[in-house]
Structures are given as structure tokens and as C-alpha cells.
């Protein structure tokens, strides 16, 4: 198994996520919390994040339909989602959350819908990239990781 190549790929993927603004410094803060006592912490947090954000997006979409022009309600949902994005360092998603909230403030349904689509796209991209990243890490496994400190 070419561990060094896999590690390189994983590192490159992660670097890309930061360089392209998908992740910010907060993600590194989360990584810092991972240690021998909690060796899969980052992946666990990411899993919780996507489950939680998926649910919030779904709730929001229902609310958009069920409560037309209820900008206060929509904003409240988005505030929760923005909080989660902020906690994990999901920077692009967070920006789309803020854009959505701005549109709520301006009472623009079209603006909100546009922001939501962008948000969903960023959500999907981030999920796919992080899944690839953790898959690579899993392939490297404890044997590969043992020869080098955690990335």
C-alpha cells in the first residue's frame, strides 16, 4: 500500500479545501481537539455536522413552502444553520447563510431562494470533498499514520 502517496493526496485535498475557502481556521481548532483519547473526533464532528445541517436545510425548505414570506421564521432557521457552519469552520456555507439572512432582511423571496440554492451546492461540495478526505485517511489507516504525525 503506497501510504505516502495516499497521505499526499489527503494533504492536498485538505489544502485545497482551505485555499478555496471551503474551510477556515475554525476547522483547525476542531482538529486540535483530536488526540489519542478521541482519535476520530474530527470525522465524528463532521458526520454530526452534515446530519444536523441536512436536517436544518430540509426544515427550512419546508418552512419556505409552508410559511410564505415569513422572513422572521426563515431567518431563525438560518441562524441555527449559520451557527453550525461557524462551529465547524464551513466558511463558504457560512457566507451563503449570511447572504440568505441579508435577503430576509431585505424581504426578497427571490434573493432567499437564490441563496438557498447556493448554500445547498456548497453543502454538497463540502460533503463530497470531506468524505473523500476521510476515506483517504481511512485507507492510510493506523499503520500508515503511525509513521507520521496526524495531518
Amino acid at each position, binding site marked *: 500500500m503506497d501510504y505516502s502517496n495516499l497521505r499526499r493526496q489527503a494533504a492536498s485535498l485538505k489544502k485545497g479545501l482551505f485555499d478555496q475557502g471551503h474551510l477556515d481556521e475554525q476547522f483547525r*481548532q476542531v482538529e486540535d*481537539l483530536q488526540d489519542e483519547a*478521541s482519535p476520530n473526533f474530527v470525522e*465524528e464532528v463532521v458526520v454530526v*455536522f452534515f446530519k444536523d445541517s441536512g436536517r436544518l436545510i430540509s426544515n427550512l425548505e419546508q418552512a419556505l413552502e409552508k410559511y410564505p414570506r415569513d422572513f422572521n421564521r426563515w431567518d431563525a432557521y438560518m441562524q441555527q444553520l*449559520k*451557527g*453550525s457552519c*461557524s462551529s465547524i469552520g464551513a466558511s463558504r456555507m457560512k457566507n451563503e447563510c449570511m447572504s440568505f439572512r441579508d435577503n430576509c432582511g431585505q424581504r426578497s423571496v427571490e434573493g432567499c431562494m437564490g441563496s438557498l440554492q447556493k448554500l445547498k451546492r456548497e453543502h454538497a461540495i463540502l460533503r463530497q470533498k470531506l468524505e473523500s478526505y476521510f476515506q483517504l485517511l481511512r485507507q492510510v489507516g493506523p499503520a500508515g499514520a503511525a509513521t507520521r504525525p496526524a495531518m
Partner: protein
Amino acid sequence: MAVAIAEAPFHVLAVDDSVLDRKLIERLLKTSSFQVTTVDSGTKALEFLGLHDEDASISSVHQDVEVNVNLIITDYCMPGMTGYDLLKKIKESSSFRDIPVVIMSSENIPSRINRCLEEGANEFFLKPVRLSDMSKLKPHIMKSRCKEHCHQDEDLLSNSETNPTNNSSSSSDTITISSSNPTEKAADDEILTKTSRPNHN
């Protein structure tokens, strides 16, 4: 000679309705050597403490229950009971008003922050909370323990004339008293206990 007051780690009760944030705060606290209990609402926090929503002042029923919480850290924005509401309940409670309370919020709203501090919150953290924030917690815990000893010392001093061998329930007070010369007068005891109290600031 004075002995360490407690060997067990300090116990923090963390309150947050977000499952993600609960996971993070738990890890932050455990990494910082705290024992942690997390709950997802203010109501559950009060239940855990043994307080009931309706009559926060009546907590004597639960004093026998072993709930030893050294600090409460709570999110501000929660459905139902907000962090501010929870803070108020805690400060209204005779049993728990001295427990330091830290409020967390993702929004930096000065009026909100001031409102919490005025109500007795000891600290306000802007989310996302970081590892470096954890070092701010212990000083609040140590200060509140010193305050607790002050109250107990005052009780002992006021009782010392009628009952010189007054037994307090707190082991630390027993230690403090025994560390000073038992023949000293009450005023001297006060001076001695003050100087022997460790400074954790």
C-alpha cells in the same frame, strides 16, 4: 497543614440545544481536564441540578442529592428557556447562586452581553468557543470557592462564642480551623484563614 480541597476534577454542566455545539464544548472541556455533563435545554439543566422551574427558591428537598457542579456554561439562544432565563433561575436559587455561570453566544450584541453580566453571569464567550477560552473558567471556579469559604468562615466566627468546636460540613473549613492555633481568638482566626487561603488568580 492545609490539604487540597478536592482531588476530583471540576465538574462543568454544559447547556446547548445544538448537538454539534454540545459535542464540541464537551471535547473542549474534557481536553481541559473538566468532568462534563451536557444537556440540551435549560429545563433539563434545572432538572439535573434538582431545581424545579416553578419554584427555584425551594431547593432544600434536593440538598441531599449528590449534584456537585462547579460551573455552568450555557448557550444564550435556545428554544423555550433561553440561557438568560436559566441564568436568572440559578441566581434566584439559594443553593446554586454562587455557581459561576458562563454564557455563550454566536452573536456579539453588547446589550445582550451587559444584560447577562448584570444578571450575574461571570463571563461571556463568543462562539465558536476555542480551547484558549477554557483557561478562563478555572479562575471563576476558584473565586466562587473562596467566596463559599468566606460565607462559611463568617458563620463559624459568629458561632464561635457559643460553640467553639463548631463542626462545619465542609472539610476545607475543618482543615482551615485546625491549621491555626486553636487557642487563638476569633479575630485572629479570621486573619489566619485569610492568609492561608491560596490565591488562584
